[in-house]
């Protein structure tokens, strides 16, 4: 009886999956998807401000061409918002299928915005054969993006982590806590900055500080209202009020972006910069855009970690091809390549324990970059706060300082 019930439930589940697949207009099996993907052009819209990432995407293009006959085109963006606004324009024009974007590199706020506006296709991650290898338990940010459950509407492809890059030649012992950073700035005014507040790294700089200064960090994962935000973030603003005049250019100017800030570090205008790429220092040295003396540190009480995803617009023309690329990004081969310190050097989203031994060896064989921290040194990742915290930080910063 129970067995019958169970098989009935299983059958029902299979039917539900099939119905969903049909409703999405996709072949019901992965083989069917592979078949349809062959020969498709997949337009992957991805921020192109990082050379190692561009090179990685080019490599992915060569590999999916070889293995699945998919033609991957990297549509280079200077802002992810460009792609988002294109999907908005297509929706506004009533192009609900045959859209010009097949895959978007996305996370956090852009994901939430697109999901809320019904601009994404999915759920789709359950269709990807390699999604089962993802370490969703050990790395919860692979399924919870800025506290928002991804619900299968985006698929992870690399881990990101807040680190601080510093020049060890000028700064032998970097400050490893938020209060210590202020003490250091008092003694060394003008030697640190952050990107402008509406750049994600700018708000991240304050968000990371809030984690350490707030009474109850556990509160950060839930939405926050105006009044509560002002009460709870008071220590952050006390800290920042004192730090701001000690920033580069007396806190009156800010670099446009993370890469612009990196140029300041390279030329010795500042001594410390924040980054979301744990391999930033090593990659910068290897490319000759950071001096060989730069190193990495994290805060003693931990730093925020998150995940980069790919999503498929609701009206994508080549969804099958996009799925094949999303799946390829999760293969051990691709993940090991992404983690190579001479390339991107991003930690993997996979659970290594679930891999076959020969695949695990790919990761064990990877060298570690001269200026990259070991997983132990990186320590545990703090989850991203709910987006409302970030939005309120930005609004409050502008209210106080934009005049």
């Amino acid at each position, binding site marked *: 009886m129970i067995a019958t019930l169970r098989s009935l439930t299983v059958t029902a589940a299979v039917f539900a999956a099939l119905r969903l697949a049909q409703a999405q207009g996709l072949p019901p099996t992965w083989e069917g998807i592979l078949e349809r993907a062959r020969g498709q052009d997949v*337009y992957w*819209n991805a*921020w*192109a*401000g*990082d*050379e190692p990432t561009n090179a990685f995407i080019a490599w992915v293009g060569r590999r999916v061409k070889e293995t699945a006959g998919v033609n991957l085109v990297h*549509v*280079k*963006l*200077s*802002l992810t*918002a*460009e792609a*988002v*606004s*294109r999907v*908005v*324009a297509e*929706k*506004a*024009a*009533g*192009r609900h299928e045959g859209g*010009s*974007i097949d895959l978007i590199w996305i996370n*956090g*706020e*852009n994901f939430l*915005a697109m999901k809320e*506006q019904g601009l994404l296709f999915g759920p789709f991650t359950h269709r990807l054969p390699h999604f089962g290898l993802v370490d969703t338990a050990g790395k919860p940010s692979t399924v919870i993006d800025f506290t928002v459950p991804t619900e299968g509407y985006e698929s992870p492809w690399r881990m990101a982590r807040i680190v601080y890059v510093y020049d060890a030649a000028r700064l032998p012992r970097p400050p490893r806590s938020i209060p210590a950073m202020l003490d250091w700035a008092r003694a060394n005014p*003008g030697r640190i900055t952050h990107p*402008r507040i*509406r750049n*994600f790294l700018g708000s991240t700089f304050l968000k990371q500080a809030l984690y350490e200064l707030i009474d109850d960090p556990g509160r950060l994962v839930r939405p926050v209202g105006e009044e509560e935000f002002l009460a709870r973030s008071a220590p952050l603003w006390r800290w920042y009020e004192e730090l701001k005049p000690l920033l*580069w*250019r007396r806190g*009156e*100017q*800010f670099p*446009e*972006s993370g*890469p*612009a800030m*990196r*140029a*300041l570090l390279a*030329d*010795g*205008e500042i001594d410390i910069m924040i980054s979301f790429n744990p391999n930033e220092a090593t990659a910068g040295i290897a*490319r*000759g*855009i950071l*001096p060989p003396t730069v190193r990495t540190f994290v805060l003693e009480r931990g730093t925020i970690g998150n995940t980069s995803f790919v999503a498929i617009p609701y009206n994508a023309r080549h969804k099958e091809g996009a799925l094949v690329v999303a799946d390829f990004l999760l293969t051990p081969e691709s993940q090991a390549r992404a983690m190579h310190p001479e390339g991107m050097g991003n930690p993997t989203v996979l659970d290594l324990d679930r891999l076959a031994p020969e695949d695990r060896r790919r990761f064990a064989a990877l060298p570690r970059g001269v200026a990259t921290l070991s997983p132990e040194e990186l320590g545990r990742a703090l989850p991203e706060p709910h987006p409302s915290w970030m*939005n309120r930080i930005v609004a409050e910063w*502008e*209210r106080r*300082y*934009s*005049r």
Partner: protein
Amino acid sequence: MGTALLPLTGKRGTGSPLLALFPAAALLLFLAPVLAGLASTALAAFGYLPALGGTAPGLDPWRRLFAVPGLGASLGLTLRTGFLAAAVSLAAVLGLCATLHGSRLFRWLSRMLAPLLALPHAAAAIGLAFLIAPSGWVSRLLSPGLTGWQRPPDIAIVHDPFGLCLVLGLTLKEIPYLLFMAVAALEQIRVREQLAVCRTLGHGRAAAWLHVLIPQLYRQIRLPVYAVLAFSLSVVDVAVILAPTEPPPFSVLLFRLFTDRDLGLFFPASAGALLQLALTVAAIGAWRLGECAAGGLGRRLVCRGGARVPEGPAVSGFFGAVAGLPVLLSLGGALALALGSLSRSWFFPQALPSAWTLAHWMRHAPELLRPAGVTFAAALAASAVGLFLVIGCLQNERVNGRNPAARTLWLLYTPLLVPQIAFLSGLQVLLVRLGLDGTWTALVGSHLLFVFPYLFLSLADPWRAFDLRYRTVALSLSGSRARSFLRVELPLMRRAVLFAFAVGFAVSANQYLPTLFAGAGRLTTLTVEAVTLASGNDPRVTGIYALAQAALPLAVFAAALALGARRRF
């Protein structure tokens, strides 16, 4: 001018119905997409954009726009830098003409400045920042030897709070542009004869220029001056590189709103786009009032026997230096970019890269080819089509007089007055609806929106200043309007036409947002690649793409100059 023509055409009994179609066709071709784009922006400005959940029209976007922190300071910065850049550029060009026109130095300067026109704005700005920043090349050359700086000094040279660096960056391109227009216009004014008349009446060279020639010259370059003013008020890419950041100029503030991760900001951004339009129109109105005041002042001076105008080598030397500055800074910037693109690593205060490599060029060269091809083809097509239409419109004016359609042609300047991102986002929706996004038609068409007004600006004044007696003679000798046009009128305008073509080519090659929106990721140009990759702030990559981006329009300019210099008569 047109009314003077009427007796002639009237006597011949017929106008040209074919030519009469040109203004109407141009208006239809251009106004429709611009208006459609504007309309969709205007709807969003009042809260209507169902794709983003905006279904209840109201004033909320405006309330949110006026609540944006720093709005007042941002508008103030925009007006300050916009007027200053336009005024400085105009003063420099008029001063240069008045003090040096006819000299060898003037010819040399106008030859040197012309290629600068082809230099893309963003590339010029990046080069300038690369040169004069606290950690820039100049500072590296002087440090630590002369300055003692081991680290770059903590001074805001680039992004300075007043916006002077932005003004400098804008004049870098605006002086060459206005000088270019002035040189073309001066050919239509009999400078030498008028100067001689003034001399015999006992007036000095400077007084003659101030009271007699500049008023005539200004009338001919008035529209380009307005375009320069509008450009200075709405430029985004140069401002991002050189202007203060907190708060930024209004154009940058708008761009940030439009591209914010919070899609809801699209509504106040659209309202801001309308505000920017109003701001530009008001600024041009104010400038026009300034013209009237200056004209009145000039007339009063003339009635009193003319002003005493300082002249002499010091004055002409000053203007020569002012006009030479863009040449120096652009060349220096380009050289610094070239060095950067060949560097393996190059940190402050090394005067030159510590290690050299060709690797970056080798890696990027193959990737440059396709965008270079698209850039070339699109620019060629847009300038050719644009030139055909512009000449048609202008010739219609000459033959048929300024009929109503011709009189409304000023509407075609709209694309230069509206902030690009505002009406282009609406236009994008239209292109998608027509299934044209990502096609050559869309790409060339969207470039034409900006190429056409610049072609018109470049050609209208010389065309209207054409000495009609040539035409009268040609008509009476050949008896054919077509033959008169092809054998006499066009060859006489050859230089202006070639220069206009080169300007059109450069304008097309420079388009960033129109390419982005119309290309839909399918067609991409060097400018789009350059701007996109510049977001990575890698000096080598930036240098390679900036130089590659400048190369094509420069080559076309050189060709136009060479062809224009050959005499046919």
